[in-house]
């Protein structure tokens, strides 16, 4: 990745973070778009697993600072997802749009499951409803938006490393 692409990549990453804290509260959907997950996955498929894990942890801890009740859960979820995505990118990030969408969907859903398990806030039917209904819905919405982002930014940030 050369300097220009690195700059573009940083801008896209920053834009996704900003969107997470501006557009998401405005939309206020129950199954909302997770722009942070998209940003972490974008980094994960272009970085080594260690770097991806640190980025995921950083993004997660920043996200957790807004919800002190689950402080650490987001960091754990994003660390795991970033590491897994960085390790599995060769399998998923072929030039297949559907596979990319599935990659984002799984990344978001697994991240939510780890988050829900770590925070210990919901239990019983609420946990199941969140894990099996709202999280997949949010993951689907995030996958659609993530796919659009991937398609849009691919010309400027290049394809993931193989």
């Amino acid at each position: 990745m050369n300097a220009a692409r690195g700059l573009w990549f940083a801008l896209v990453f920053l834009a996704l973070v900003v969107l997470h804290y501006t557009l998401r509260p405005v939309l206020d959907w129950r199954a909302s778009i997770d722009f942070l997950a998209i940003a972490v996955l974008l980094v994960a498929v272009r970085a080594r697993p260690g770097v991806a894990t640190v980025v995921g942890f950083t993004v997660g801890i920043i996200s957790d600072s807004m919800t002190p009740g689950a402080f650490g859960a987001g960091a754990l979820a994003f660390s795991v997802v970033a590491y897994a995505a960085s390790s599995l990118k060769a399998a998923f990030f072929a030039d297949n749009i559907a596979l990319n969408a599935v990659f984002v969907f799984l990344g978001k859903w697994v991240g939510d499951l780890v988050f829900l398990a770590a925070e210990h806030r919901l239990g019983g039917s609420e946990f199941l409803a969140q894990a099996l209904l709202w999280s997949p819905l949010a993951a689907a919405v995030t996958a659609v938006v993530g796919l659009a982002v991937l398609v849009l930014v691919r010309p400027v940030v290049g394809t993931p490393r193989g």
Partner: protein
Amino acid sequence: MLVACVLLSLVALVLPAPLRTSIAGGLRGTVVVPLAELQERAEVSRRAVLLYDASLRVADSVRLQASQAEVVAAENDRLRRLLGLGAALKWGFVPAEALHGRGLGDDYTMTLAVGRNEGVEPFSAVVAPEGLVGMIEAVDARSSVAIVWPHPDFRVSAMSADGTAFGIVYPHLGPGATRFLLELRGVAFRNELRPGTLIVSAGLGGVYPKGIPVGTVISELRTAEAWARNYLLRPAVRPADATTVLVVQPRRSKEGVSSAWQTAVDSALSQVVAAGDSLAKRHADSLATVERLRLDSLQALQPRVDSTGMPVKPPVAAPVRPPVGAPAKTPAGSPAKPPAGAAVKPPVAPRATP
């Protein structure tokens, strides 16, 4: 690296709540400040968007209520004046609801919800508190139809309120909005009327009694007639606004009704005078208040206690009567007595030295 991050995350999860809160607060106060502000602004924007419709509805309903209140107030005022007119007429009139149509020709006629059963007769004058509206043309048992002054057949003999100029009032058949004005025709050339002059019915012809306001002069109309003047009038009544009217019965018309409007004018004048008196009284009160405050402040500025701690008595203006036939002389060394009516300056106590 994964292990380290996972361990750190788990440590963060199991930290005591106060410590977690303080760490999160520290992050929010430093690196996350811009993001927190962005989120706050976004949520405020969302609330504003959500509240916009509600506030719009509230504003609309308030506006609607305000407009209705104005209409109701105007209607109340009109009804009050109609009651005043009814009280001034005392007898020989029939109050009626005017039913306004919205069809062609409805500008020229007015249907009244009273008829023969209520004592309405053809060729009765229809009046409102502001003045003349028209004349009853057809009467049924329970309703009647009146022509109003824009009707092409409307005529009324009229005169200036001071009785110096006479003429006949016609509807002004001009183009556009001037169609809804009146004309005073046939005024003697020597009688020049100024704009604003009140024109009332002259009582000639037997239909309209004398003294009902018809309109006010706007301007003179230039015509080819060299022996008379014509004037454009602003009507006293807008038929569309006349929702309730009085039908003056012919026997009441014969008795004369000019005193009714004169009473109304006197009442209005008395209200104006009363308002003026009230203003003058308020002005006088305010002047008195200002003067009292000024005196109070001056009194507050006077020293109440001198430097010795002795209270100073207020000056007393004691009249001193000089001995009869002798000049008012004073012995040397003794203080001179002041003339009658003058204030006596109190003796100044020696200033105590520390």
